[in-house]
């Protein structure tokens, strides 16, 4: 097993990987940008190496600097987390060349799945159903407009390399396709350094159901069941759960087999996720046509804790063992989904102002605790949320005996989550888990957008206990906690401490 690894990421995922490393007696190396000098992932690592300025392209995306950090600290392996370099085959290959183990799939598997057109062709020949779509060889705006016409509207335009909903655009009947193409291209170039775009037909009111797979270097490849991630906003997942309320045991088996076939087709190793669209309009008994391969995420997913809570596995531990050449650390025949788990993504964003991302100091930050509650976060009280990165503040993951018990637990935990200093979506999430449609499990990827007016409807009424504290707060000097600097200054990452 490795003695020391470098975590090429920041925020909650870096902190989460370090926790498993500590449990396994593996020393950790953090990397950080100018904006993250005192970030949680830096403070919790055994060593930390500065890799550049705040802009991701000059720090967390700079493969050369990250590998140099691994070399100078003697790290034997690199865990890429999600985002940044995690799905970059050139980086994985550069690791191998430098004699450092990349904790993830082989570069060829990443390359095969990273190209959406290649992946589709491969899936079609492997018997995995796909949705109509194409990546035009001619990437001019005119050729992409033609592609939109061919696949039909509503169409989706997205970066060919990449994921996580970044740069994705929907073009409906009346939308300006040209503006969408240009915006998506700009996003793709900025986020992934590659402006190649993919155009596909949008399946209406689908569910998003994905299968977690795990493969080792000894030929074992298994499904760790599904996560339903239908609650999304602008293709960014907000709530994920397992089991999916939509799957029968028979459909679960078929989707699991399709996911394993997809992984085997590219010689996959380590943790991966095969995403499917589940078409609710497909008549029951329509055979394989009820679900379509969307893409494979060749990395650990943001929502992996949902699978950890229902299977009892530590996926990061399994990743480290498999990367070190060991067989899967569990018996596939003993795997099952126990109870129900739900993840809610707490974002630093303001639902009342069009979900503008928020940056600033966490004046007060109290995470919920208690039975069945897990919080993965990369911040603590007094930290400043910087403007340069993803606005994910924390992942609240709950488990319960049943879906209803898990929803009640999520409601309770969200009601204990105190964040003051920046606006978050916690109130929205709470209304979401209380909503009858969500409680009934009638989910599709457009549900959240349709519910938004209801979920964000604000009451300007101030409850009596709030009015009381408003009156007393200013006249109680010992209670007033004021940050010592401009609240939106992203350069001052020190934050205020009580």
């Amino acid at each position, binding site marked *: 097993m490795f003695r020391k690894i470098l975590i090429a990421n920041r925020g909650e995922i870096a902190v989460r990987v370090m926790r498993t490393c500590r449990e396994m007696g593996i020393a950790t190396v953090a990397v950080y940008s100018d904006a993250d000098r005192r970030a949680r992932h830096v403070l919790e690592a055994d060593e930390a190496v500065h890799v550049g300025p705040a802009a991701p392209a000059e720090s967390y995306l700079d493969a050369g600097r990250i590998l140099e950090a691994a070399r100078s600290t003697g790290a034997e392996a690199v865990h890429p987390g999600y985002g940044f370099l995690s799905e970059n085959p050139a980086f994985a290959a550069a690791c191998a060349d430098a004699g450092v183990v990349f904790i993830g799939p082989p570069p060829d598997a990443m390359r095969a799945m990273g190209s959406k057109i290649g992946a589709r062709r491969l899936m079609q020949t492997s018997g995995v159903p796909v949705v109509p779509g194409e990546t035009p060889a001619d990437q001019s705006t005119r050729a992409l407009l033609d592609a939109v016409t061919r696949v039909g509207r509503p169409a989706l335009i997205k970066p060919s390399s990449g994921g996580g909903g970044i740069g994705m655009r929907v073009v409906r009947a009346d939308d300006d396709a040209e503006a969408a193409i240009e915006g998506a291209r700009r996003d793709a170039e*900025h986020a992934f350094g590659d402006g190649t775009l993919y155009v596909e037909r949008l399946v209406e009111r689908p569910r998003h159901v994905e299968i977690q797979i795990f493969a080792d270097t000894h030929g074992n490849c298994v499904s760790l069941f599904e996560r339903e991630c239908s609650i999304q906003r602008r293709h960014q997942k907000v709530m994920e759960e397992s089991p999916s309320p939509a799957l029968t045991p028979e459909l679960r088996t078929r989707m699991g087999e399709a996911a394993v076939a997809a992984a085997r087709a590219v010689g996959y190793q380590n943790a991966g996720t095969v995403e499917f669209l589940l078409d609710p309009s497909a008549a029951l008994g329509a055979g394989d046509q009820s679900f379509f391969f969307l893409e494979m995420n060749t990395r650990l997913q943001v929502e992996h804790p949902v699978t950890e809570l229902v299977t009892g596995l530590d996926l990061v531990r399994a990743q480290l063992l498999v990367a070190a050449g060991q067989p899967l650390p569990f018996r596939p025949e003993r795997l099952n989904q126990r109870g129900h788990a739900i993840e809610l993504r707490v974002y630093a964003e303001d639902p*009342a102002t069009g979900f503008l991302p928020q940056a600033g100091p966490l004046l007060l930050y109290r995470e919920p605790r208690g039975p069945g509650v897990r919080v993965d976060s990369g911040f603590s009280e007094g930290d400043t949320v910087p403007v340069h990165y993803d606005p994910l503040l924390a992942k609240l993951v709950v488990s319960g005996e049943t879906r209803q018990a898990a929803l009640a637990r999520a409601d309770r935990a969200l009601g204990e989550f105190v964040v003051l200093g920046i606006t978050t979506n*916690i109130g929205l999430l709470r209304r979401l888990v209380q909503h009858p449609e969500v409680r009934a499990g009638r989910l599709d990827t457009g549900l959240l957008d349709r519910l938004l007016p209801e979920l964000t409807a604000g009451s300007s009424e101030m409850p009596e*206990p709030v009015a*009381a504290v408003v009156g007393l707060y200013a006249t109680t000097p010992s209670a007033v906690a004021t*940050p010592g600097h401009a609240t*939106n200054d992203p350069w001052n990452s020190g934050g205020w401490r009580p």
Partner: protein
Amino acid sequence: MRFTTDATSGEAEFIGNGEWRVVIDGQAHRVFAAGPADAPWIWYDGVVYRPDVYDRRTTSSTARRDTTGSLSAPMPATVRAIEVAAGDHVSRGDTLLVLEAMKMELPIKAPADGTVVSIGCRVGELVQPGVPLVELR
């Protein structure tokens, strides 16, 4: 300490670490407060209140416009694209520039018909709220 509001009265106690205990008619409530004395953030029963900002909330991602006709960023952001130049005539709703923050694109649109007087930013620049980006007349 004893308090009285328009509607009721009761007891409020500052516990420490931002926490307050308010008792009204024998019923205890947990409240958290932080921030400047004149603009506090207050948490109660899972909901955050900003008593000072109720009136100046905007409901869209369009830029703030001050009285001199200049547009500024609604939040700290990076300038991704500038779509206009000084002297251009623009119509209400035209995209003037595109900001990017936390992986999101925010188009800054013309709030009214007019002429671009000056551009106060460069592509790639990190801009702060309140700093004029485009001046329109």
